[in-house]
């Protein structure tokens, strides 16, 4: 029995188990500290649906051996471009939402292609290069957001007249377009974001199905054993680029879903560190630098958003002070450091 417990601890990693137990503890504490249990659960589900797709986007690149996508910002920028252009075109409702996605996919494919080609040149050090490519592209886009010729009065600065604002409201366009879709109201406090969850399930299913196809299996082979894949005649470089494009496209869709739920499009420096929470969530769910599955995405996103939601509400009520931001930094970055220091078995 003891051996079995030891085995479980070793496999899952002590930090993950600690965090899981911590989350359970937080949930148990809710009624005692004056926080409503049902609203907490609801909040966690909503945030899970908002962020899930971004976490999902990391999977193709991990599977193909490109490591954790620290350059997630490229996909996010593609999504932002799609969102902003769709608003410029004054499209609303579902039409607006899908226009945004369509344009975003176009940009994501272009970015993903270039990004993938770059990563192929730096095999072995993808993560570091990706981090800085991600950062520089966000800063570069800052310049672009100022200079691109957008005209929509909802988006540009009120007095100056040129350059986009830092945050743009999606209300009136496609705010909550998915969330309100077939919304289920349970009781007076729970609002289940059916649309968003359905969309997430749909994308998850597509990714799962993809990895069952011939190309998907080839991609996984490239990630788990490059030489064997080459031996089988698989074009390793091409597979990697395709995985990067896939990741970037999913990330672009992910940020648009995030925005429809959140209500705002955040430009300029906001996307700078957005890769880290997604990566931390994936790692929390049991993935590693070389291995990731859908299960990791779901468990990880849920756990991570759970901690993010519950910690402020519960701890703040106990200690009467707002430690949530610091705790969030410690947990998410600590998770990443932990995962990076786990010895990889075979590459």
């Amino acid at each position, binding site marked *: 029995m003891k051996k079995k417990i030891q085995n479980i601890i070793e496999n899952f990693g002590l930090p993950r188990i600690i965090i899981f137990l911590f989350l359970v503890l937080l949930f148990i504490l809710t009624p005692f500290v004056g926080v409503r249990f049902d609203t907490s659960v609801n909040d966690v589900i909503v945030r899970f649906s908002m962020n899930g797709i971004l976490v999902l986007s990391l999977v193709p690149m991990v599977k193909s051996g490109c490591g954790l996508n*620290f350059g997630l910002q490229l996909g996010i920028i593609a999504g932002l471009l799609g969102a902003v252009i769709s608003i410029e075109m004054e499209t609303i409702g579902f039409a607006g939402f899908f226009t945004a996605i369509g344009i975003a996919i176009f940009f994501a494919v272009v970015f993903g292609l270039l990004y993938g080609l*770059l990563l192929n*040149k*730096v*095999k*072995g*050090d993808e*993560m*570091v*290069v990706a*981090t*800085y*490519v991600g*950062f*520089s592209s966000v*800063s*570069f886009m*800052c*310049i672009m957001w*100022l*200079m691109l010729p957008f005209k929509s009065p909802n988006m540009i600065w009120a007095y100056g007249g040129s*350059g986009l604002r830092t945050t743009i409201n999606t209300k009136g366009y496609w705010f909550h377009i998915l969330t309100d879709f077939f919304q289920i109201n349970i009781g007076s406090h729970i609002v289940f974001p059916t649309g968003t969850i359905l969309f997430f399930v749909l994308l998850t299913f597509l990714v799962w199905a993809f990895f069952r196809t011939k190309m998907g299996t080839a991609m996984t082979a490239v990630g788990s054993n490059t030489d064997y894949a080459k031996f089988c005649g698989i074009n390793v470089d091409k597979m990697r680029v395709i995985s990067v494009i896939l990741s970037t496209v999913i990330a672009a869709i992910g940020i648009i879903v995030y925005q429809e739920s959140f209500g705002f499009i955040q430009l300029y420096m906001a996307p700078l560190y957005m890769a*880290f929470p997604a990566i931390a969530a994936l790692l929390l769910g049991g993935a590693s*630098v070389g291995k990731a599955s859908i299960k990791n995405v779901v468990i990880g996103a849920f756990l991570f958003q759970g901690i993010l939601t519950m910690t402020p509400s519960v701890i703040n009520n106990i200690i009467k*002070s707002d*430690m949530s*931001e*610091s*705790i*969030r*930094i*410690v947990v998410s*970055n*600590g998770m*990443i*450091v932990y995962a*990076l*220091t786990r*010895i990889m078995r075979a590459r």
Partner: protein
Amino acid sequence: MMKKQSLTKTMNPGVYFLINYAVPIIFITLVGFAIPLSGLSGEYFIRELTIRLSRNSFLILALLIPVMAGMGMNFGIVLGAMAGEIGLIFITDWRIIGLPGMLLAMLISTPIAVLLGYFGGIVLNRAKGREMVTGFMLAFFMNGIYQLVVLYGMGNIIPISNSSILLPRGYGIRNAISLLGIRQVLDKLIPLEIGGILIPVASILVIAILCVFIIWFRKTKLGQEIRTVGQDNDVARTLGIDVGRTRILSIVISTVLACYGQIIFLQNIGTMNTYNSHTQVGVFAVAALLVGGASVAKANIPNVFIGVILFHTMFVVSPRAGKELIGQAQLGEYFRVFVSYGVIAFSLALYTWKKRIEKENERKKAMAFKMGVLVK
């Protein structure tokens, strides 16, 4: 593929030089355009650069030793910066001013820096091959811990008597602390003015001493061990060198130096941004070093100074150039950040690409030799 192979090995030295020093060359060109564009005077530049050289060089010099040990760019110097800031918080609390204040800050923060460096070294040892990403994330992680300590612990569990540095709620340090007590204490220690420009003689002296120290250190037994570890871990191990311990030591030294470097930096500025002063330290120091011509595997003292001059010139020039060129100074600010990150991305990519090609070449040569085609 054949063409690429011969790129670094048998091409003429001119092209080899260009590729190796691509980053500083591109930078010099950029800066060359931007300086006249910004319309700033030569005297302004000299004054700014003197200040920036004396202010930032120490921190960047701290990066050299981990490069020697083969650990790449040590983003963990942020941990040293945090240690230094904690020391400064305490001397501000105890209202100790002047040079004794600065020295006391250095004294208090040294054990903290050693501890953090030791922790950093252990973590980096467990992430062999991924030191740079891990160091980068470690810095973020430590920032969270720093916040917990400084924003919640201080004034609570850690007694702080000077209420002017505490937040209104009674605990937690304010966002910005005035370091007026030790402002420019090192810079003005030995006063010298040439043509209206204040020359911080003492600071420059300290930097010179550090350079001499580094040069001497390279020749010591520990220094040699570090260099061997940097060259080849396995060779070092067969020579009886404790690779793990040596790597940890190099990070500890780097962290302690960064700690002092941050204190020197802050004494020049005179105010401390409690939660932000250290966050950009890693990125800017690494970018400056890379701009000076260093690479992940090789960095020397000239790289540091060339880097500071080029990088900080760009820094000074960008907002103005942006304003002249496009009409918005904000553009210059973003351009600065873009260039800092872009330089690192570009240098790292170039370095990794080169490394891979060299490895390929070695492999092909070894195989050809084995097959008797090539006679060595």
